[in-house]
């Protein structure tokens, strides 16, 4: 699997500084789970953050270190005194077949088999994902093989992460792990590749602008 479309530096920086809000963060974190290159870029940013803090150190405050040390020791429970046991082997057995990586899988409540698809019309389905933070809308989308997503523009940012199958957007092909960033300047019509439904995660912070009047009419019902 080779990822061709990566998270941008500015979005990754927001992830590194913690400024990215929950909805966007799910998409970026899930991309990073699939993308070693992105994680190397992230670790460089974290190192840069470390360098900046070390370079402009706030005046160290050591007034009550001994007291703090005593109180920290008290907080380390007995169970935490045991070396951590890794269960990597156990998980490796299941490897390969899992479609939804963490942190997305926990939000969905399981892998693809636990997705409760709701029809969007024309063979497309979605499943909205509930978040505490309501500044974004997050959903899984299933676009039928060979079919287009209705043409639309954007009133804000849209992130689309492919999880299974693939789609074309103009010349560009997006497959598992690829992340598409769209904004107000982009009008597009992604088309799922023939042969397999395309499942992706979509995050938006504003309703889409559909060209079709019919879609505009039913948009509030679908909540897209």
């Amino acid at each position, binding site marked *: 699997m080779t990822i061709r479309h990566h998270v941008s530096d500015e979005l990754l920086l927001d992830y590194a500084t913690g400024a*990215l809000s929950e909805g966007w963060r799910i998409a970026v974190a899930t991309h990073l789970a699939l993308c070693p290159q992105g994680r*190397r870029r992230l670790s*460089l940013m974290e190192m840069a*953050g*470390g360098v900046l803090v070390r370079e402009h150190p706030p005046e160290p405050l050591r007034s009550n270190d001994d007291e*703090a040390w005593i109180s920290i020791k008290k907080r380390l429970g007995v169970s935490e005194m045991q070396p951590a046991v890794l269960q990597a082997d156990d998980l490796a057995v299941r490897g390969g077949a899992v479609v939804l990586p963490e942190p997305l899988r926990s939000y969905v409540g399981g892998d693809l088999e636990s997705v409760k698809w709701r029809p969007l019309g024309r063979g497309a389905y979605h499943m909205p994902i509930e978040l505490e*933070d309501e500044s974004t809308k997050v959903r899984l989308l299933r676009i039928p093989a060979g079919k287009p997503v209705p043409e639309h523009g954007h009133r804000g940012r849209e992130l689309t992460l492919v999880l299974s199958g693939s789609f074309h957007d103009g010349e560009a092909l997006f497959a598992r792990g690829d992340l598409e960033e769209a904004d107000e300047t982009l009008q597009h019509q992604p088309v799922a590749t023939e042969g397999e439904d395309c499942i992706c995660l979509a995050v938006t912070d504003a309703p889409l602008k559909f060209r079709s009047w019919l879609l505009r009419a039913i948009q509030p019902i679908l909540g897209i």
Partner: protein
Amino acid sequence: MKQNSKSAAKDDLARLIARVGSSRDMEAFERIFRAYAPQVRAFMLQRVRDPQLSEELMQETMVTVWRKAAQFDPSRGTPSAWIFTIARNLRIDNYRRSRRPDFDPNDPAFVPEPEPAADHALETRDEETRLHAAMTGLPSEQRDLLKLAFFEDVSHSEIADRLGLPLGTVKSRIRLAFSKLRAALGDRP
């Protein structure tokens, strides 16, 4: 010589964290605590402005270091980058109540590095020195932007608002800065 002893100290810290992770070594943990507590406490106070809360967040950072020590991977970065990332995240969690989802290296769907390099300890130490030099060489407009992002915990679009710059300008400065930093480290990704 001074550089050498500083690097040696950094290596030591990576080793101390490894000892905490593998054998719950309390003496190693205390040395990490003594080395970082004053800075982390002050780092919290810069943003939180409440000494009592800063103290609590510093202690929470140290407890997290203890809990997650086994996950520290020297090939992914330096001890100070790791500890300040933990501190920064806790500082943000404190005023943002929603969850902060992250990837999980133990997840069966996680795609690992194709071939993990072997000689990391040395490489990482060298990398931080080079990164430091490269950051000093950045144009001030790019450095200031990174400082704002890491010290004030604001997103790139909030930075654009604050500085009265077009979003596109902020984006391109971020991209320029990191392409230079990556080049300085021999285009790691």
